[in-house]
């Protein structure tokens, strides 16, 4: 018998089944009469597994995951903070969970109220005049924002001319990918010494072909752009719009409003800043907040209020159109609103202040052990370099893998691209002093191991459910489904330690 953990398809067998369905209580006709001329499938090679075994299977899988409820997750630019449980319960209320997106405005006043309220508080937090909550994720928010910028240029007769977007080399990869989706061109500008936007480099590229400048604030090194007001003024003087990537909003809430920095629009990752669960890779939501001049271009439909009654307005001739099958990731929006209201203005400010304090504290604790390329005070995250360990034959990847043995998730590694062997660390406000100290001690110990026993790091992790996985083999063999092969070894595997 093979002792390897089994996939669903390797369990159960013919005749096994899960939950029963009620017998058909309407007159049954042969399918051939119901669906004349329609070809039915002959086989459906699905698993046949009893409910207890399905439950065990997924419980077994669940135990293999690291997750925020289990431990620290210092992933830079990902803002892995506590996900309050009350928010999940509220999103699951039958009145929300069962509400249908096409039931009509009269029957959906509660859902529309949630959307409307969230848009209002997000506008207040970001300092913009209106918000669309339709985009499903940050990247879709970016694309929606760029479409609005294009529509604005077109409305001024400059749509054909302005097709270039200036992006610093420290930006998230989604920025240029979103630009490409519009068929526009990305112009990358090098960062200056402290990774800030270089106004001179910007000035060289800004011209009447520039549609927009996309910036992340704080930038991906966790640093606030000291000359941001000058940068946004320059862009506007050249007729461009300025877009803010809101991935790092957790540093600003209650302290600074991007609308007051001269930005024209931004997206918000509610799964980062506003605590909605990451779900192992989604769903998130990526609302976009815009200044008044961009309001006519918001995606349709827009929630409007008249005499206390909410309705969806579709007739918006300048709108960029629809970007979601229905109204965006509503269940996620409920959670984000609950989070914001549970904190209130004071709690929100405390989030940012604590996130900044935590990041600076960790940065100083680790600065002597790892290289700190940018020694200024950081905002909510900071970037270290693993370069000093290179002389022992140890890479940042090895540090990341060894961290897993201590019950800590690895930081974001090898990003931003402008720092060699980068370790991008964002502790968030969630972590207590005790946790931060634990993490610092682990990082210091790993650096010592690199000196004394580098092989230990090259072989890590040891305490995880599987050892280091062969990613090259995965890409070569491309076993993407169990029909193509499950990678199950032919021979009996060695007994587990």
């Amino acid at each position, binding site marked *: 018998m093979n002792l*390897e953990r089994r*996939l669903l398809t390797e369990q159960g067998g013919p005749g*096994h089944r*899960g*939950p029963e*369905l009620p017998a*058909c209580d*309407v007159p049954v*006709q042969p*399918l051939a009469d119901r669906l004349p001329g329609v070809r039915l*499938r002959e086989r459906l090679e699905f698993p*046949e597994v009893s409910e207890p075994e399905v439950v065990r299977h*997924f419980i077994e899988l*669940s135990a293999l995951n690291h*997750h925020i409820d289990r431990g620290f997750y210092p992933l830079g630019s990902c803002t892995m903070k506590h996900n309050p449980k009350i928010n999940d319960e*509220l999103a699951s*209320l039958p*009145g929300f969970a069962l*509400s*249908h997106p*096409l*039931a009509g405005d009269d*029957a959906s*006043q509660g*859902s529309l109220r949630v959307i409307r309220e969230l848009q209002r508080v997000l506008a207040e937090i970001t300092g913009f005049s209106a918000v669309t909550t339709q985009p499903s*994720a940050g*990247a*879709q928010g970016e694309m929606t924002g760029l479409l609005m910028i294009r529509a604005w240029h077109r409305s001024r007769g400059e749509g054909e001319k302005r097709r270039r977007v200036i992006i610093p080399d420290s930006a998230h*990869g989604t920025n240029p*990918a979103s630009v490409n*989706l519009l068929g526009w061109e990305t112009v990358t500008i090098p960062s200056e010494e402290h990774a800030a936007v270089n106004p001179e480099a910007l000035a060289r590229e800004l011209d009447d072909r520039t549609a927009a400048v996309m910036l992340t604030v704080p930038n991906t090194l966790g640093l*606030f752009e*000291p000359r*941001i007001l000058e940068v946004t003024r320059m862009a506007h003087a050249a007729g461009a719009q300025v877009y803010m990537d809101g991935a790092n909003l957790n540093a600003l809430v209650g302290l600074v*409003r991007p609308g007051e920095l001269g930005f024209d629009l931004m997206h918000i990752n509610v799964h980062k800043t506003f605590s909605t669960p*990451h*779900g*192992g890779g989604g*769903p998130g939501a990526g609302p976009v907040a815009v200044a008044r001049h961009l309001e006519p271009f918001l995606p*349709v439909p827009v929630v409007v209020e008249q005499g206390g009654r909410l309705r969806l307005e579709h007739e918006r001739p300048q709108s960029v159109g629809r970007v979601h*099958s*229905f109204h965006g990731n509503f*269940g*996620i929006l409920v959670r984000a609103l*609950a989070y914001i209201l549970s904190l*209130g*203005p*004071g709690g929100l400010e*405390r*989030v940012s202040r604590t996130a900044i304090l935590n990041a*600076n*504290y960790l940065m*100083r604790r680790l600065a002597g052990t790892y290289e700190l390329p940018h020694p200024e005070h950081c905002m909510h995250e900071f970037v270290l370099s693993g370069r000093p360990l290179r002389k022992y034959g140890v890479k940042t990847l090895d540090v990341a893998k060894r961290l*897993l043995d201590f019950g800590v998730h*690895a930081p974001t590694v090898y990003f931003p691209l402008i720092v060699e062997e980068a370790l991008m660390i964002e502790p968030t406000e969630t972590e207590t002093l005790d946790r931060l100290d634990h993490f610092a001690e682990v990082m210091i110990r790993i650096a010592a191991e690199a000196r004394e026993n580098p092989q230990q790091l090259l072989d890590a992790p040891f305490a995880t459910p*599987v050892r280091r*996985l062969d990613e090259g083999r*995965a890409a070569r063999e491309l*076993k993407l489904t169990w029909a*193509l092969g499950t990678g199950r070894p032919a021979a009996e595997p060695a007994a587990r330690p």
Partner: protein
Amino acid sequence: MSYVGRTREEERRMLEKIGVPSFEALLEAVPAGVRLKSGLGIEGPLSEIELRRRFGAWAAANEGARCASFLGAGCYDHYIPAAVNALAQRSEFATAYTPYQPEVAQGSLTAIFEFQSLIAELTGMEVANASLYDGATATVEAALLARHSTGRSRVVVAGTLHPHYREVLRTYLEDRALSFVADRGGQCAPEDVQLALGPDVACVVYSYPNFFGLLESPHALHRLAHDAGALAVAVCDPIALALLEPPGAARDGVTGADLVVGEGQSLGNPPSFGGPALGFFACPETLVRRMPGRLAAATVDKAGRRGFVLTLQTREQHIRREKATSNICTNQGLLALRATIYMGLMGKQGMREVAELCVQKSHHAAELAARIPGYRRAHEGPFFREFVLECPRSAADVVRTARRRGIDPGVDLGQFSEAWRRWLLVAVTEQRSAEEIERWAEALREAGEGAR
């Protein structure tokens, strides 16, 4: 509430370690003029009790959610087995990040691999990805892939595709790149598609079943598309595919669809006002390097044991930046997990039973409605789970009347087009009992009285 565990004394110690006199010193890079002077104009903090009260009242204001639902149109009320919620709500899945460190994410990765396997089988394709945002954007991504793969620009779209999906296509693609083929009697005539084809066409997009619930003949469209050198893109419903021959399968010498995409909400996910939703995307192995979104693959660890990782990340934005196959950075992980648990629980037999119940119940409802004076089916032809009723008065009126009886009788298609104002799109899933269907028919009768 702040969810922050920190005392003033701890703060003082931390600032001391950092070497600054006060927190404000950390913000030296922020121009003083842009610091927020007064607090945000937001309500709160609200305690859990207050939140429950507030959100409870809003949830209760959704009248529609209290009715027996005959609503569909891309978002369905299918039964969700209790085990789906119990398993998917676990923190281990819900609060995990994207599985970039596979050694501590085998739970999520194995589930994604199983999701890909199940979707590939259901669609009759070789491979599927880890999911996309929703059915509409999965359709867009299919059109974009077809354009890249063929080097052609125009996309021919059956007019019987969901109107919202057509709108989203219009948002993403320029107008001149889209040709919509109007329907005849709710179906897309192959001769009309033929007229729209040309050497610049990258793909033909159609839906199966279509927006009106009708089952058109997919292989006629595949043949037309392939003869013109274009790809065939099928936008499908996964419950229907448990019963119907999947469009990915070749038949009688005619090749199958090249891309099969769609909305997976009906696999174990609640309607939730239309989101979060679950886009799925399946294709042949030959197109996998052009595929958007995340992919999990099987491999082995250092000790030779099976494990799973994200693969072909060189297609993705965080590596390829502007050269990526798409800008997508997330998948709908938790919804894909729910779909995987659902498909695992229902299994071979249960999936087919759900689909058959949908057919039997929706056809029964259509027969009852046809006997009510003033109502008739708007289209001919076989349908799955959903059909359009032409009402003796506006569908909006019918909805209003029926709702008073606790029935949401269908989607008022008047919201899409003035020409459809008397059309009600009725979906009947396995959830609707014979008694509810009787009450639905009664409500229609009542709404129709005196109208003619």
